[in-house]
Every structure is written in C-alpha cells, then in structure tokens.
C-alpha cells in the first residue's frame, strides 16, 4: 500500500486517490454518513479487494437490481454472516495465490454488533486474514430506526421511544473495540466520517496487516438521528470534540490516541443538535456526561 503520510504522521489530502470505487446513483438518503464512509474506505483500499457486506442500509442502497454502485468485486449473502463469508473469500484467495487481493467485510452496526457478532467472533478467533469495518449509524436504520446494541444511552429509536414509563435507550453502547481487541486482533481502531484522512490512514494500515483487523467508523444518519442532511459531518465532528466518540487504535495490545480534542466540549453541545436526544432532561444529560468522562479518563483524554 502506498503511504500517503506526511513526516508528522498526518495524511496529505492531495495524496488521497482520485479514483472513485463507489459510484453515484446509489440510493442512500441525501447526506448519508455511511455512504460517505464507504467512499473513503474504498479510496483507502484501492481496487484489489473483495468486499463482503451483510444486509443493511449500504447493501440495499448500493445494489438495486440490475444496478450496482460498486466498482470492486462485492458479495452479499445474509444479515448475520458477513465475517463467515469473508472468511471463505479469504481462504479462497490464499489457495488461488492472490496475495495482493484483500478480503474486506463492511457492515452496519446491526449486522456487526448484534446478529453478526457470532460470525465475527469466530472469524477473529480463527485468526482469519480479513479486515472488518463496521459503519455505525447507531441503530437498525434501514428497517426504520430500531435500537441496536450500538445505540447510545438515552437515544430515541422506534423501539426505545420516549414515554411515561420508559425514556429511550437504557443501555450503553456495546464496546466493540474492547471485544475485538480481546480476541487478540493485531489492530483495532475507531474512526469517524468527519475525519476522513484519519479513516483512510487507519483502513490502509488495517488492510496491510495479515490477520483479523477491525475498524469501527462513526457515521451519522439524518433520518435516524433527526438531524438535517447537511449536518452529517458537523455532528460527527461534535461527537469527537465532546468525547462521545473517541479516535484511538490498539495495535498488538498497545492503545494509542490518534486525536485528542484540544478542550473537550460538554456533551450537551452534541446532544442538543440531534432530535433523537431532544427529550433528555438535565439529569439524563448529566448521566451521559458522567459516562463520557469515565470513558475519556480510561483512554487518556482529559
């Protein structure tokens, strides 16, 4: 993989490849955070890949028969088995001696964190040579905004509605980075669509490592998060600047921050711009602040 890093470890935008491996005409909502992530991920990977997607937003909007937005080989089988299919792809590539082609699975949070977790765990336990990227829009958005294991605490979804007795998601987000690192993966990292150069650098690094690697990308969803389509990047940025989403990597067990917000903003700034958090009272917001403070302290962000 050709490096696009500057001497200071940053990435030069002018070095980001021009080639578009994800085509226009896909049916994603205007401003879709996941579609943006796919575009960046494919730029990072180049054409020598075989992509496996589970069922989800990206699979549905990118391949309405007879059209496809993919300019790389791509396969979709079912909802919960992307990592298993990608394992089969990886083994076949090994047999065929195609060392320059990488098996990459790209799945949403539903198909990764919930129903896809068994296959993912199995693939990582077996040390399969594949990269798994989770594009996380924090709910089962494709089926109409239902809660997933990745829905953040307090969020409205159609299955965690705001009522008299219950008020939104009452569980914290599943910590996928910790889970995949615990499998002994040589490289796991978080990323964000608002930080595409960081994302591209991480994807290239993860793809170049032999073995099971994992990247979790934070992707806002306009309809699901109740934000205007134009605010996708701004909201993703706010997530990082408030510590609600942190950018770090764990390489062979060594954790390293890849971005430290200069002065962490209060979470309220992130929450108040999204309709899915509009119902939160001061007590609930304070609870979320507490959770974020704890997590930031754990990974070394003040």
């Amino acid at each position, binding site marked *: 993989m050709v490096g696009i890093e500057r001497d200071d470890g940053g990435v030069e935008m002018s070095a980001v490849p021009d080639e578009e491996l994800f085509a226009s005409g896909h049916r994603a909502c205007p401003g879709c955070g996941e579609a943006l992530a796919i575009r960046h991920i494919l730029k990072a990977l180049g054409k020598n890949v075989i992509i496996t997607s589970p069922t989800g937003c990206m699979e549905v909007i990118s391949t309405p028969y007879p059209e496809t937005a993919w300019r790389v080989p791509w396969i979709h089988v079912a909802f919960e088995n992307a990592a298993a299919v990608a394992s089969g792809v990886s083994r076949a590539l090994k047999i065929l001696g195609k060392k320059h082609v990488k098996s990459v699975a790209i799945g949403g949070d539903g198909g990764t964190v919930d129903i896809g977790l068994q296959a993912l765990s199995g693939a990582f336990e077996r040390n399969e040579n594949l990269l798994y990227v989770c594009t996380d829009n924090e709910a089962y958005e494709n089926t109409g905004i239902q809660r997933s294991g990745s829905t953040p605490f307090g969020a409205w979804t159609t299955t965690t509605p705001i009522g008299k007795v219950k008020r939104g998601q009452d569980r914290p987000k599943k910590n996928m980075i910790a889970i995949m690192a615990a499998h002994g993966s040589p490289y796991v990292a978080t990323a964000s669509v608002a930080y595409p150069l960081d994302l591209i650098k991480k994807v290239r690094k993860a793809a170049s490592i032999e073995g099971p690697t994992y990247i979790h990308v934070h992707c806002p969803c306009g309809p699901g998060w109740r934000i205007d*389509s134009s605010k996708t990047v701004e909201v993703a940025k706010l997530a990082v600047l408030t510590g609600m989403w942190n950018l770090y990597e764990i390489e062979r067990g060594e954790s390293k921050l890849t971005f430290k917000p200069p002065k962490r903003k209060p979470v309220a700034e992130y929450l108040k711009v999204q309709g899915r958090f509009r119902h939160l009272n001061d007590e609930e917001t304070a609870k979320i602040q507490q959770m974020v403070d704890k997590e930031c302290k754990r990974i070394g962000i003040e």
Partner: protein
Amino acid sequence: MSKVCKEREKLLPGAVIVEPGCSERTETGSWRSQRPVVDEKKCTGCMICWMYCPDIAIKKGKPVKIDYKYCKGCGICAEVCPVKAIIMEQEGKK
C-alpha cells in the same frame, strides 16, 4: 424514471451484475429540493467539499464543479466549506 443497464435484458444466474458502477444510469439529481451553487470567485480549491460529498457529485478543480445529475442537495458541501463559497438555493429558482 430511472434508465437501467443493458444487463436488464440478460438475467444472469443468481442475479449477478457484471457492469461495475452502473448505478450511474440513475440520475439521483431528480431527488433535490435545493441545490448547491458555487461562488467561483470565493472557491479556493481546497477540496474539502469534494472530500465530504456522499454522492461523488463534486468535480475537483478551482472552482469545484457540482455534478447536478447526481447531487441530492444534502447541503453538506455548503456546511463544510471553510470560506462559505457554496450557498444552497431552492431548486427551480430563477
């Protein structure tokens, strides 16, 4: 109505699609209710808007050019432009 690939007439086993990127036949620009307009004098060619377009509807250059065939009018480009060179206008205006 979307124009479709020539593969429409050739149903391959398992519904395999062999023409990469043929989603381009569908011009999603028809979805727009607002359109981005680039102030060519203000544009510095920084490419930040190009980077953040989910629909690959911005062509690199100074100034950048919007591909109205596909632009869905999401407005991200107008939001992220550091010099506010892009304004969102109502579709069908003028």
